[in-house]
């Protein structure tokens, strides 16, 4: 076992998948000679050459549209959007074209590809280097949306995504890109299956749903709840937002009867709103307290007051106290 970062895990997955399948190509801004601004594509250019590790002109729609054409023709492109905040010029290509290709052609044309993009705040990035865009894509049928929370999952989920017949949006939590490190088996071609949540901390008193960079926040809040109140919370890391592991969600709330949802994206019509609605529709009879959503505020992502915006363990703890003391 080796302890590695998420950046290294992404790089390892790309290196291994490109070695396994010569149809896998990487393209994007600064991904080639420079190895990516976060170093996720380091050494790929030297290993696989400029035909398969491609520095593109600066056009996000161009990158994704080109990758769609490549995938239609039979390659397995892994385009990178340098920050998810810059994905919007490609939104039309992703939602109108990529997501609908299989459906609109009756399965005659498909676009298996993985769009990798770092997302999220906590890195002093202001409006345009910090946002969490997941819900714009989870709302579009035809896309798989994946958010790993540690190096083991980043590697295993990315390998599974590259082998998937469906288009995948792979959101990388850049706040935890380089720390903490996680143990990842060496010389082991493992994958982590898409569509399966993971219980990060087992508990019986309440459930916290989370994904990406909010997973360690949820664990910390649970630890505080245990220390301060003796409550035993369960942390459910969703890992794949579409398709949602609904069974895992319902199993956990059925066990605990209390739910706190956690996301760093703005609260209104966020992903957690869907989780709350599912629990309300299908498990309201087991709930012992109203659901509490902890999320970013409904404002553009701030710079100086970022620490106020970002959900932190104490804010989550207050929500835990609400659901645990509800009468």
């Amino acid at each position, binding site marked *: 076992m080796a302890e590695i970062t998420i950046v290294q895990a992404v790089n390892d997955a790309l290196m291994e998948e490109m070695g396994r399948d010569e*149809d896998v190509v990487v393209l994007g801004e600064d991904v080639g000679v420079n190895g990516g601004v976060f170093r996720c594509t380091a050494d790929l250019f030297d290993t696989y050459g400029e*035909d398969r590790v491609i520095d593109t002109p600066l*056009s996000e729609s161009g990158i994704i*549209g080109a990758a769609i*054409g*490549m995938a239609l*023709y039979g*390659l397995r492109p892994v385009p990178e959007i340098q920050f998810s905040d810059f994905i919007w010029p490609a939104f039309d290509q992703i939602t109108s074209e990529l997501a609908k290709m*299989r459906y609109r052609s009756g399965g005659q044309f498909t676009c298996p590809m993985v769009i990798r993009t770092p997302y999220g705040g906590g890195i002093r990035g202001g409006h345009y280097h910090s946002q969490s865009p997941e819900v714009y894509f989870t709302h579009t049928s035809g896309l798989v949306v994946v958010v790993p929370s540690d190096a083991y999952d980043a590697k295993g989920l990315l390998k599974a995504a590259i082998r998937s017949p469906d288009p995948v949006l792979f959101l990388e939590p850049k706040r935890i890109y380089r720390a903490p490190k996680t143990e990842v088996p060496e010389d082991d071609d493992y994958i982590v299956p898409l569509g399966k949540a993971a219980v990060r901390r087992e508990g019986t008193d309440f459930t916290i749903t989370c994904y990406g960079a909010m997973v360690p926040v949820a664990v910390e809040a649970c630890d505080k709840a245990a220390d301060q109140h003796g409550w035993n919370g369960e942390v459910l890391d969703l890992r794949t937002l579409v*398709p949602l592991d609904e069974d895992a969600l319902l199993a956990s709330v059925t066990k605990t009867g209390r739910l706190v949802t956690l996301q760093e994206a703005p609260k209104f019509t966020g992903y957690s709103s869907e989780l709350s609605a599912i629990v309300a529709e299908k498990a309201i009879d087991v709930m012992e307290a109203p659901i509490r959503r902890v999320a970013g505020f409904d404002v553009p992502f701030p710079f100086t007051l970022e620490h106020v915006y970002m959900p932190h363990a104490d804010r989550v703890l207050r929500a835990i106290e609400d659901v645990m003391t509800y009468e």
Partner: protein
Amino acid sequence: MVDVLQILSPAGEVEANELPEGLGDELLVKLYRQMVTVRTIDTRMLNLQRQGRIGFYGTCKGQEAATVGSGAAVEMRDWVFPALREGGVLLLRGYSLEQYMGHLVGCSLDPAHGRQMPCHFGSGEHNFLTLSSVIGTQILHAMGAAWAAKIKGDDTVTLGYMGDGATSSTDFHAALTIGAVHKVPCVFFCQNNQWAISVPFSKQTASDGIAVKASAYGMPGIAVDGNDVLAVYKATREAVERARRGEGPTLIEAITYRIEGHSSSDDATRYRDSAEVESWKQRDPIERYRAYLKRRGLIGDEVDGEIHSSVKQRVDAAIKAAEAAPPPALETLFTDVYAVTTESLKAQYRDVATEDGGGTNEGAFPL
């Protein structure tokens, strides 16, 4: 503006240029038959739309030379990325009229299960991409597929169609920029039919034509008389060969005219002068080509009648079959969203299948 390539004079005479290479008598006649077929189908379909038997239609009328001439210049192994008015290229590639009509009617004979409104054809077997309604997006797909062919070492060429309106899209700019940098084997083919719904070309761009834009992207730009099927064929064929030799993309502007409205939903008399339409009708691509073929003795007076009656017969039979076919199966509402239908989609299907059955189907485009 760059010089406009013309082979066939408006009177149907071959001018200074000689006939393009590879255009033997058989192909010369085939081009004609195909142009007349496209016109006949368009006329019939527009009538069916007026009768409420299909929901929508966009004709190729006036652009048959540009569509057929370019479509005939690529091989079957090449890929076609169409816009709205290139259904004729799919027929040229051997697509069955039954499936064609099945799609227009939206019945179970449509390989895409009636999921899109009419005129959004596609066939994997014919390397003809199922188009979306979004303007310009396919230009990037054509470029990307050509790039993939280059990476894989295939000698496939792609043909990406667009209208003049699409040249204002960001994806046009991105596709030509990237395609030229990476010298991909793609032919960008713009049907400049002078109108993007109600917006004339003069309000689309202040550029002196489209072809001239190519030089800034770093590729050849060819302007061609789009109502001259021989010139269109020659220009496209040369661009395809150039791409296949590894010399990169070409931008072709076929200067033509949209005789009908944008679609069956559009009344063009609201925004354009009938005198302009009449002047372009005088330059009809089929009349012009017919005069040439007759002079050459390649077709006789009877050929039009024969094509019309055989097309009518085949179209009528295909329409009859399509109208008699059942609608797409209920489950096709939920399949093909993902490679394997998800549990939540299966649950939604079960709800519809067991309890609901769907509401009444009264929609009409446009609302």
